[in-house]
């Protein structure tokens, strides 16, 4: 008769706790990575977020939209 497949320990209860613990940690790591990614993306895309980080002007000057001005003079 085959033993039911459990984890390495062979203890069903311990394996269940290990798995839950692993899932929790994986979830935590994923959320940290996702949050970091989102902040990085928004900081790159949105000047307002840059201003939150204190670098709005530098960002605006470097990657602002094209500009148009009409000058006037005489000769």
């Amino acid at each position, binding site marked *: 008769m085959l033993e039911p497949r459990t984890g390495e320990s062979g203890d069903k209860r311990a394996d269940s706790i290990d798995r839950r613990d692993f899932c929790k940690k994986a979830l935590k790591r994923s959320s940290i990575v996702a949050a970091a990614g989102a902040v990085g993306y928004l900081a790159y895309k949105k000047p307002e977020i840059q201003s939150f980080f204190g670098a709005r002007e530098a960002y605006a000057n*470097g*990657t*602002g*939209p*094209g*500009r*148009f*001005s*009409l*000058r*006037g*003079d*005489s*000769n």
Partner: protein
Amino acid sequence: MTRRYCIFLQTMVVLAFAFVLMLRSPNVWAAALATGTPISFKVTVTKVEMWNGSLWVTIFSGSAQLDLVAGGIFSGIGNLTPPEGTYSKIQVTIRNSFPLLGSVNYQGVSYYTTGVDGGDPGTGSLATTVSGSQAEYTFYDPGWGNLNDEYALPEQTISPAFTVAPSTDFQPTLRFTLTDMLELDSTPPPAPIYWISLSLLTVTLVLP
């Protein structure tokens, strides 16, 4: 006899041609006494449009005035952000109304513009020799329609085409030729009345 008649006819044709040319050039008949350059000349831009390859995009619409003698950027048409695209033509619309200040020196006497008509409204400013009475007079160019009409200057090709991108800063210049554009005229003596008119305006849009 026939030959002489031919020569006479030819002479008449030449004289008639010369006469027509003189009629078409008022300056031949009424040369200005003297000319001068405005010290202030205000121009109002009402619209700026650019062609993006399929339609005219309005970059500015409203009323932006600038004294072209001082020069600079039209108030309200600075640091605008055009919609993304590549533009190959531009057209500027101005108001046919040019408030100006200026004077003309004639035989050692300065004649200044006033706010009073010295002829048809908008075409001649009654002149004064009192500098303290100098005032702004609003001219218009009858060739561009009525006073305060909007006049679209000829569209101009942008070459190379202007592409809106993060680092682009497109600054064309509206330039009027104002040197010696003021002309002093008068009625005949013994009690001449002086007035200042504006010769035909020349405007160009200088692209960067």
